[in-house]
């Protein structure tokens, strides 16, 4: 009966292969804005060096592992640990862009990037292990790029007290926060994307014809709750102010898929969720995912003649995937804050680095050198872009303050009382979605 045994072997092999390949987000390749073409030459030309995880490299260009790293005077290697693929057209790609900005600004800095560090894509691998290996290969600083790495970042920081660890998002280094951990070499960086999401919500409200806006949400946590809620506040404001309609006539639905991107069999399939949105009459979708399913499915539906639009997320060039249907893309510009933190680390002044939750540079939210949060206006805005400009200007000069009460939670209890404005702590730790939103709060 060897046939049976071999069938079993084949099945098991197949299982492993499927597990290895199957979890890769399906969306990545089609959605890639221009890839960097320079092969990495970290030692030869430090200033122009770019580490391009996707580009094939020749063996000669690969830095040889050495047991004893010999740092040149200017050599400063940083390990960047990504939760998803580097070319996801979203969150992870924005971090890769940030690393390129750093290399252009600080001579001698190189990055070693490990992508897809999550238990579905890389079973039997933990964030801390990747950090161990990067540090063993000479990394002098580690950046974790996902909220889901909060425990890994803390563990790594504890294990290597002399290695500065940046956790992009997260609140462990926030002294006033509710989860403060006294770990001097751990710092959190985040941008006030709430403003970007308000703009996203506004763009959606200005353009929906059915009055039904969908928010394609990742997983539920503090960050995503406040971002979805900010999008709603922006939508409600623009719906009432610029379109002169009643808030009660605006539907705002949030569906969480369960992770930052699709993991077949574990999360909801964002492609299917998008189709449900579109078939359910939600004609504008605001993406909260790392990956571009909202853009892709909207593009398909638009090509089939449906009047649908989307707002992208995370990446400046996010609209490029489907320019005509794109209302805009609130994005992170990690470069400048990374430069500040890395310079502090190089100068030995990283310990107790202040918690960063940076506002956009209101003088010019799209300034690459100063604004951590920006908004790309999409072609799909058409004539509504004038109202968008008004809205952004209002946020900038603070004549529009959407955090002013009264704002109620979904269950009718007070989030912010009348006459008060939400504090940063209230905003960060928002306990529920807001009244008027349709979706799970926890």
């Amino acid at each position, binding site marked *: 009966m060897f046939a049976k045994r071999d069938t079993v072997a084949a099945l*098991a092999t197949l299982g492993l292969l499927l597990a290895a390949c199957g979890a890769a987000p399906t969306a990545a390749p089609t959605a890639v804005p221009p890839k960097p073409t320079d092969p990495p030459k970290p030692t030869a030309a430090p200033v122009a060096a770019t580490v391009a995880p996707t580009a094939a490299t020749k063996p000669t260009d690969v830095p040889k*592992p050495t047991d004893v790293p010999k740092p040149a005077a200017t050599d400063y290697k940083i390990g960047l640990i990504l939760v998803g693929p580097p070319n996801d057209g979203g969150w992870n790609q924005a971090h890769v862009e940030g690393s390129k900005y750093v290399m252009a600004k600080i001579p001698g800095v190189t990055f070693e990037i490990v*992508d897809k560090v999550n238990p579905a894509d890389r079973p039997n691998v933990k964030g801390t*292990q990747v950090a161990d*290996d990067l540090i063993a290969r000479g990394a002098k600083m580690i950046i974790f790029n996902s909220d889901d790495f909060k425990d890994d970042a803390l563990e790594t920081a504890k294990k290597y007290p002399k290695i500065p660890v940046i956790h992009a998002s997260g609140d462990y280094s926030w002294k006033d926060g509710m989860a403060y951990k006294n770990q001097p070499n751990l710092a959190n960086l985040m941008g006030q994307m709430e403003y970007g999401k308000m703009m996203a919500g506004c763009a959606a409200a200005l353009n929906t014809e059915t009055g039904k806006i969908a928010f394609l949400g990742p997983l539920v*946590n503090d960050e995503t709750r406040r971002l979805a809620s900010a999008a709603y506040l922006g939508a409600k404001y623009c719906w009432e102010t610029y379109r002169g309609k009643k808030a009660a006539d605006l539907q705002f639905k949030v569906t969480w898929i369960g992770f930052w991107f699709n993991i077949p069999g574990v999360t909801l399939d964002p492609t299917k969720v998008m189709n449900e949105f579109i078939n359910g009459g939600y004609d504008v979708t605001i993406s909260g995912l790392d990956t571009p399913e909202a853009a892709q499915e909207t593009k398909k539906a638009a090509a089939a003649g449906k009047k649908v639009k989307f707002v992208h997320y995370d990446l400046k060039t996010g609209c490029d995937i489907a320019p005509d249907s794109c209302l805009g893309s609130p994005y992170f510009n990690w470069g400048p804050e990374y430069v500040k933190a890395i310079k502090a680390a190089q100068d030995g002044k990283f310990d107790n680095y202040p918690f960063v939750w940076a506002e956009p540079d209101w003088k010019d939210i799209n300034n690459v050198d100063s604004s951590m949060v920006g908004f790309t206006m999409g072609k799909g805005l058409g004539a509504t872009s004038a109202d968008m400009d008004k809205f952004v200007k209002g946020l900038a000069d603070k004549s529009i303050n959407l955090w002013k009460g009264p704002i109620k939670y979904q269950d009718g209890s007070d989030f912010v009382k009348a006459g008060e404005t939400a504090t940063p702590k209230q905003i960060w730790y928002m*306990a529920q979605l807001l009244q008027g939103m349709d979706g799970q709060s926890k």
Partner: protein
Amino acid sequence: MATPASAKTPSPGAAYRVGAIVVGLIFIAGLVLLTGHSPIDVLVAMVKAAFGTEDQFARVLATLVPLTLCACGLIFTFNAGLYNLGVEGQMIIGGIAATLALRLLQDSAPGPVAMAVAILAGIAGGVVWALLAGALNVFGRISEIFAGLGLNFVAQGLAVYLIFGPWKRPGVASMSGTAPFPETLWLPTIGKTEASPVALIAGLVVLVFTVIVMRNTYFGLRLRAVGLNPRSSTVQGIPATRYLLSAFALSGAMAGLAGGLQVLAIFHRLIPNISSNLGFLSLLIVMLGNFNALFVLPLAFFFSALNVGSLTLPIQFQLESALAGVIQGVLVLAALIGRGLSQQARARARAAAVRKG
């Protein structure tokens, strides 16, 4: 049913076995060349990444434990003629049961007690899940392959449900897992590495137990008899049902232990992929080792090193580390093809001998 003992006869087809592996290696080298890298560089880097630092070597040991445990369990089921593909699910249930025990005891019992109970709970969970497959097989006449695979899905679904549902972190619903347990509930490790002496000892004890039972006991002998032919062994007075269920239970206990240790020693929380696909990998180990317990340790060590070393593929070569899965699969396929060819060669030799004689 194939006799595991068949490997012990001198093999006229040994050249086929070696040849197939060599062809497999050439194929892998070709694949690596296609990616624009030197196979030698990649090999050296992978070996370094498995053994270069104490952290990495400890990781090889830490992965070795679940592989060894699951493989030992599978030795029993394979020798009983059973294809326990449910080993993944048994491992997952072990992890779930251990997590449950820790959650119940973390505030009331001292750390070591809670951890001991959690390990026992993991074992019990694995046994229950394996006996479920066993009962479906023995009493329900459902192939253990499909029963096992089906139960794998159920176990996986249960883990995902618990992580998103009743056991989610406060205010969070993410597939990244439950909140980590406090460090008092982590099994101690060697230095700051991930290798846990308790887990290593558990793996070693189970391995020695398996070798002795299979080689030197009446139980092992009868189990093999049942595996060869359940009906005739029943006629000869061996209670086949009891032996089959015992094999399931032993296999489940070891897989459940592995799952529990994944929670206590490695992840310190429940994650959806708590088994890290190591159960499937151990199936390959046992088949490659021709169902012989003596080969478990070296093969598990090899695959553990391959698994851990493959992390350097994305770091150093910007290569997809799924390539390690391909390498693994190619090696196993090559070994199986080699075995098939060598058996045909042996059969031809025997036929020729008969004709001559």
